[in-house]
C-alpha cells in the first residue's frame, strides 16, 4: 500500500490563501494612524525623525531585503523583508526617491514572525531601505533598485 505524504500547500494554493487573509486584515492599518506624519513626510530626514526620534541607526547583516535589482514594473515592485534580530517591534520600508519616502510600516507583536512581503510603487530608481525597530536601536539594510526604460536587449 502506498502511503501518501502530507503535502505542503503549493505556492499557488498559498497565494490564493494569502489573498483571503489580506481581505480580513484591513483593520490593523487603523492602528498605524499615529504614523500619519511619517507617511506624509516628503523628506527622508523627517521620516526618520518621526519614526525613530533619537535612537541610534546602525547597518545590520541580519536583515534580508529581497527586491529586484531592476524593477520589471515600477508600479508593482515586489519586496520582502525578514530578520532574526531579537526584540524587533516594527519593520519600516523607505524608498528615498519616492515623493513620500515611507512606503510601509509593520508593527510586530511578540507573536509575530518578522517576515513580510508586499508590493511597492516606485517612480524612479532609488535606494530602498528596510529599518528594524527595537526598543534601543534601529537596524537597517539598503539595496539600490533601478526603474528604467526598456529596450535594447542583446
Amino acid at each position, binding site marked *: 500500500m502506498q502511503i501518501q505524504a502530507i503535502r*505542503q500547500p*503549493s*505556492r*499557488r*494554493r498559498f*497565494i*490564493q490563501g494569502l*489573498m483571503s487573509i489580506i481581505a480580513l486584515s484591513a483593520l490593523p492599518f487603523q492602528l498605524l494612524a499615529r504614523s500619519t506624519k511619517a507617511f506624509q513626510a516628503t523628506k527622508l530626514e523627517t521620516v526618520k525623525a518621526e519614526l525613530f526620534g533619537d535612537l541610534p541607526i546602525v547597518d545590520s547583516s541580519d536583515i534580508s531585503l*529581497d527586491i*529586484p*535589482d*531592476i*524593477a*520589471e*514594473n515600477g508600479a508593482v515592485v*515586489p519586496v520582502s523583508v525578514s530578520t532574526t534580530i531579537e526584540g524587533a517591534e516594527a519593520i519600516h520600508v523607505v524608498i528615498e526617491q519616492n515623493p513620500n519616502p515611507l512606503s510601509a510600516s509593520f508593527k510586530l507583536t511578540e507573536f509575530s514572525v518578522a517576515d513580510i512581503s508586499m508590493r511597492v510603487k516606485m517612480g524612479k*530608481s532609488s535606494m530602498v531601505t528596510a529599518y528594524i525597530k527595537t526598543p534601543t536601536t534601529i537596524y537597517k539594510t539598503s539595496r*539600490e533598485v*533601478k526603474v*528604467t*526604460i*526598456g*529596450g*535594447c*536587449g*542583446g
Partner: protein
Amino acid sequence: MDRREFIGILAKTWIAATVSGCTTLRPVREGELYNLSPFGQSRILHITDTHAQLNPVYFREPNVNLGVGSAFGQIPHRVGKNLLDAVPGMTPQDVHALTYLDFSEAAERYGRVGGFSHLSTLIQQLRGDVPDSLLLDGGDTWQGSGTALWTRGQDMVGACNLLGVDVMTGHWEFTYEEAEVLKNAAMFKGDFVAQNIKATDDALFEGIPMFNEDSGHIFPPYVIKVVNGRRIAVIGQAFPYTPIANPQRFIPNWTFGIQEEDLQQLINKVRGVERPDAVILLSHNGMDVDLKLASRVQGLDFIMGGHTHDGVPIPVSVKNAGGVTVVTNAGSNGKFVSVLDLAFGQSGVSGYRYQLLPVFSNLLPADPVMQSYINDVRAPYASILDEELGVADTLLFRRGNFNGTFDQVICSALTEQLDAEISLSPGFRWGTSVLPGEPITMERLLDQTCMTYPETYVRDMSGAELKMIMESVADNLFNIDPYYQQGGDMVRTGGMSYTCEPGATMGKRITDMRLPNGELIMDTKNYKVAGWATVGSQSTGPAVWDVVADHLRDRKTIHLDKIDTPRLKGVKGNPGVADYPGELI
C-alpha cells in the same frame, strides 16, 4: 573558393605573420583545426545566440566594447590587437574569427561562418570522437531571421532537434506569445530549463500552465544528464531582464530576475540530493553578469554563457567563497562551437580543457540532411528573402557599443522615409554583416530587424525626453555594477550628434546633443523623432523592414560619407576601443 584554396591562403597568412614577427602563429593543416586530441571522460559542447541563422553568414566582431569600473581592460572588453596582446598564440583564422581586423579582406579569404548544416557536420564529428557527450544551447535561437518570425520560432526548434541539442535556456524565445513559447518548448526534444522564470503572484492565483505549482517554476530549473557514466547537472539561467528589455505584454504571467539566492539554494539542493559529478550553469546573463555571479555564488563548476555575444577564446576563472567557477562565453550567430572536456577525480571535476572553435563553413561540408531541412524551410519564402534591395560600397555591420554602418542605413531610412528630424534605433547585438559590393538582400535586412515588435513610430519628443532616453540606455550599458546592465549596446541615432562619457554616472554621461546644423538640442523644445521596437505599448507604423526596404529600393546604391557615432570622452587608452571612426576627447 574551395577548401584547397582556403588552406593555401591560411598558409600564406602564416608566412606573412611569421615574417612580421608573430612567430607564435602556426599554420593549420586541413582537419587539424577540428581534430582534437582526447582529454578526460565527458565532453560538453555549447552553442549560443545563433539568432536563427540557418545558413552561413558574415559576422564582424566589434571595435568598440568598452569595459568600465572593474571590467576596464578585462576580457571580454578588449578589441582587435588589444585582444591579441592578452591571448598570445592565436592562429590567423582565430584572429579573423575573434576580431574586426581587416574584416572585409579577411572575410573574402576565409569565407562565411556558421550555418546549421556546417554546425551539424562539426558537432557530429566532435560527438563521434568521444564515447558520450552533451550539446547545450544558451538561447536566442528562435529569433533573428524571416523564417523564424514567420514560423514563430518553429523552424529553429526543428533545426535544433535535428542538431541534437540536449538542453537549452532562453531570452528572445520569450518574444513570442506565452502559449507559443510553451508549444515550442514542448516540440523541442531536449530539456528547456530556467531556474529564474516563475509565475507572477497574480498568475499563480489565476492558475496558468507551469512546470511546478509548488515552486512556481514555469520550466524545470535544472536537469541531470549522464555523460559517459558521469552525472552532469545543468541549471538553466534565462535572460534575467526579459520583461524589461523586451515587451512584457507577450509573457505577462512570468517574472524573471537574476535570483541569486534561489540559485544558491538550488545548487545546494542539487549537490546534496542528486550527487552530481559536475554542476554547470547554462546562462543567458551576459558575460559581465556571469563574472559577478560567479564571485558570489558557490558550487558551480562552470558558467557557460551567452547573451553579450562575446567570443571569448580563453575561459575566466573566478574565485568565490566555495572555490573557483570557470566562466565562458561562446559568441553568436553560429560562428563558434565551444568544447569543454572534463576529467573527474575522487570528488568531482579534477581538470578541464576548453576550446572555442570557429565554424568556417568552407572547411566543413554541409550535412545533407540538415541542408535539405533548411532548404525546405526557406522554400516558401525564397522569393521574398532573395530580393536584392540595393548594394553598398562599404562593409555593413551593427555590432559594437555605438552606431554601426548598417544602423546608419536604418537611421537614414527612418528619418527620410518617415519625414522625421531625428531617428533612434535599438542597440541590439544581433544582425549579420554584408561585405562591400555584396547585394543587400531582404534576408540580410531581416537579419538586422526581424522580431515580433517591429512597428515604427513618429512622434514629438522634448529635448529633455530624448536626453532621458539616451541616459537610461547608456546606464543599462555602462553602469559599473553588472547587475544593473541589460547587455545591449547604445541606442543608435540619426540626425543628432552627442558626446558620451561612459565612465560618468547616470544622468551625466550624455552631453552636447546637437542637430546636424550645430544647433543645441533644448530640453523644452520638441523634435520629430522616428524609431522602432517599442517595448511598452505596440506602435502603429509600418514594420521597420518595410521602411528600410523602401529606402534601399529607392536608393539602389548606398554610400556612407560618415556615421553618426558620438564623440567619446575619457576612453583614450581603454583597450575596449580601437580604430574608432569618431572623435576621442
